[in-house]
């Protein structure tokens, strides 16, 4: 039928060598046992060795670095905004130790005579005078020249004894 029939017959006369009897036994035990890797005669499987996984470590380190950088930038930004928020707070109080009294001014701008009055435990009459005053206290810092001035109203009532002559 073809030119190779004689050659094919020659090839078929070649008989492959029989495998070892042990192979059948090994397959039998492998099929009987749990589904694991088969026992081997010449090829021993390597034991699992610890392999350091660089890729996850790299990703982890990169993520940690990014997080630290982000936190750092956030802190920097908050620091840059700090003067704006600080401007809303009151300035620190000036130390009074650096100020020395520079003057006191009393201006009486109204006086009124309220007539004679008799005290309950005395027969001698007394004249009552009511005066309104504005007092101004002033301090000065000799080093900087800064001044502090406080002004407030004051009302004073005086009882003046009246002689009987």
């Amino acid at each position, binding site marked *: 039928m073809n030119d190779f029939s004689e050659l094919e017959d020659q090839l078929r006369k070649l*008989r492959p060598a029989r495998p070892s009897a042990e192979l059948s036994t090994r*397959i039998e035990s492998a099929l009987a046992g749990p589904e694991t*890797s*088969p026992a081997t*005669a010449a*090829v021993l499987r*390597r034991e699992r060795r610890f392999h350091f996984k660089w890729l996850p470590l790299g990703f982890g380190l990169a993520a940690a670095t990014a997080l630290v950088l982000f936190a750092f930038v956030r802190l920097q930004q908050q620091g840059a905004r700090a003067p704006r928020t600080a401007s809303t707070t009151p300035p620190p109080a000036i130390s009074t130790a650096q100020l020395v009294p520079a003057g006191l001014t009393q201006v009486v701008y109204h006086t009124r005579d309220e007539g004679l009055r008799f005290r309950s435990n005395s027969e001698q009459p007394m004249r009552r005078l009511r005066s309104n005053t504005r007092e101004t206290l002033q301090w000065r810092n000799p080093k900087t020249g800064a001044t502090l001035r406080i002004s407030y109203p004051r009302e004073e009532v005086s009882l003046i004894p009246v002689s009987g002559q």
Partner: protein
Amino acid sequence: MENVATDENWKICFSQLAPGLVLFARQWTRSAADAEDVVQEAFVKFWRRNHDIKNRGLLYATVRSVAIDLIRRDSRRERREATALSDSDQSVQPAFDFQDDSQRALVAALDLLPQEQREVLTLKIWNELTFAEIASALGISQNTAASRYRYALAALKKNLPST
């Protein structure tokens, strides 16, 4: 080999298939022991998955896959096998029981065949696979399998002193 297809007892199946399977596995291994390891792993895998024993193409494809995995598993082994395959067959000798010198010369001529032709010849002659099954096992077309078979025979005929 025909009764193998209907026999579900693995021992009977295996006893009839084993010589051809080991011979086929030796395409990728240097020693008979390595080839037997490949056949063991492949046959156990095939049998555990309850594949139909009639699907011989799948059985031989499993052997081929396990053999290639074995080569890749160990880099030293891979280098050794690659060297062996590229050295044109000196180390990948089919294991035959010789009866005379003419058979020895035939095996020597077989060793000179390219790998792709020799594996088709092995499946066709000593494992009695059809071209359809060979195509399934090797992942090639039937026409390619038939062509490689013819090329192999032609090369053998050319290399033999007298046929």
